[in-house]
């Protein structure tokens, strides 16, 4: 329980911000994630796609350190999550529709608390910039529970980017947003990924959005990665017109697509 001395575990200059290796997780007899390996490079947005129950959220939870894999490892910028959890998670942040920030605190209070926990430098300035970026200035002192679902999503995104994480995990970040707000968020995430040494893992059920945002996609089904590659290349390889067609094929006939990782 006492924090270990992590001063000896300097991160390497890994070309990948995330390396997940042979992740496995079962709940009793149910195999949720089955030997999943993938990486996210710097400046890259990787889409983690798949039907409901495919294992996307389980995978994200393992990367966030809130779910321990049965086997396998997660490295964030070369820092092993199991061995140096706190140090690895300092470089990470996330937003998910199923994890809204406490509704009984205001937008500012939530951002301040999480900013302190993540050790954000010049916190007041970062909060002000985040409020501006996500059009939340007028909601600064409004309790999050009083906001619309779209506004709450924007607050979650502001929290997720507050510490300028090297690895940003976004689980259906635009699910409750109107088209205009969703477009702004996509632009923000794209700008976030290309600005520095950062990578983004993104899940979405909106295939048009995925095609527009992601540099690379992973199709997950029944806990396994069936397909991996650039959206356009995958469409060409499988003779599909759209990513949605490919998604439906993966969801309905996963066995015919097994072993097609690039």
């Amino acid at each position, binding site marked *: *329980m006492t*924090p270990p001395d*992590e001063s000896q575990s300097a991160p390497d200059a890994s070309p990948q911000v995330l390396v997940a290796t042979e992740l496995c997780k079962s709940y009793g007899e149910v195999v949720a994630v089955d030997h999943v390996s993938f990486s996210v490079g710097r400046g890259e947005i990787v889409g983690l796609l798949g039907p409901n129950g495919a294992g996307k959220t*389980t995978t994200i939870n393992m990367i*966030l350190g809130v779910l321990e894999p049965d086997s396998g490892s997660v490295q964030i910028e070369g820092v092993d999550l199991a061995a140096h959890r*706190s140090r690895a998670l300092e470089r990470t942040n996330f937003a998910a529709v199923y994890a809204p920030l406490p509704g009984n605190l205001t937008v500012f209070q939530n951002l301040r608390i999480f900013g*302190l*926990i993540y*050790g954000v430098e010049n916190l007041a300035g970062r909060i002000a910039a985040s409020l501006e970026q996500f059009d939340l200035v007028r909601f600064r002192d409004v309790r999050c529970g009083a906001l619309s679902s779209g506004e709450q999503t924007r607050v979650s995104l502001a929290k997720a980017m507050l510490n300028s994480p090297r690895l940003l995990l976004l689980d259906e970040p635009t699910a409750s947003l109107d088209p205009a707000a969703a477009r702004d968020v996509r632009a923000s995430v794209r700008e976030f990924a290309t600005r520095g040494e950062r990578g983004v893992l993104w899940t979405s059920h909106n295939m048009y959005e995925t095609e527009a945002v992601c540099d690379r996609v992973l199709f997950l089904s029944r806990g396994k990665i069936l397909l991996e590659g650039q959206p356009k290349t995958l469409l060409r390889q499988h003779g599909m017109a759209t990513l949605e067609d490919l998604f439906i094929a993966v969801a309905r006939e996963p066995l015919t697509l097994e072993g097609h990782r690039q």
Partner: protein
Amino acid sequence: MMRWRRTAAIALRYFYLLRGSPARIVPLFAWVGIDIVLWGFISRYLNTMANRGFNFVPALLGAVLLWDFLIRIMQGVTMAFFEDVWSRNFLNIFATPLYIVEYLGGLVLSSIATSTVGLLVMLLLATTFFGLSFAAYGLVLVQFLFALFLFGIALGVFASAVVLRLGPAAEWFIWPIPALLSPFAGVFYPLSTLPEWMQGISRLLPPAYVFEGVRSIVSGRAASGAALTWGATLAALYLVLACWFFARTYRHAVRTGLIARYSAESLS
């Protein structure tokens, strides 16, 4: 390395919640205030009935004040923890770099702040209206408060771990804990009043040493320094065990996926 800024963030969260919520502020002093008033009058009445020379105020009212202090400390920890339960905040909190020791430190800081309010209100009422004088206890009062503080924190951390393990509905196991312990703690009567088997349990409880000490002082004898030191040592041991139990429960919750899906209450 433990970072105090993270611990302070957890305490700050509770401060924000208190600041904007009369429903959270009033219970900090209302119930303990009522207890002091009630037992103040009972003590005053007993003084009129009993032999002249014995003062029930330090014996009964002082004991109630110390017992309520213990309860406030425990509830200070559990209430701060429950805020994360009620707002379904585990995923956000535990996906951060926060260490468990930093999180627990934040709960303890929150408890110190809230129980201090309760203690001050109790002291004000007990001294102003019922003439309770802490000079009667002397410096040993610090030892009383220290042992009760440690044990209250231990109970709060243990109770939080139980709720983490069993789910939100288990909070109803937590509220009666002080009531279950009070017969063994000998708040109002000497431990010799209890049957042997109950005394055996009492000897394992730090408050029992405190309240025996209170009665010794009220009877004109000195409180046993060795007994109080043993009580505080026991309390410190329980605190270590409670923190270990919380950390173990947390690891179980991470292994089973309960942290991520806490509302399901059990996934194993």
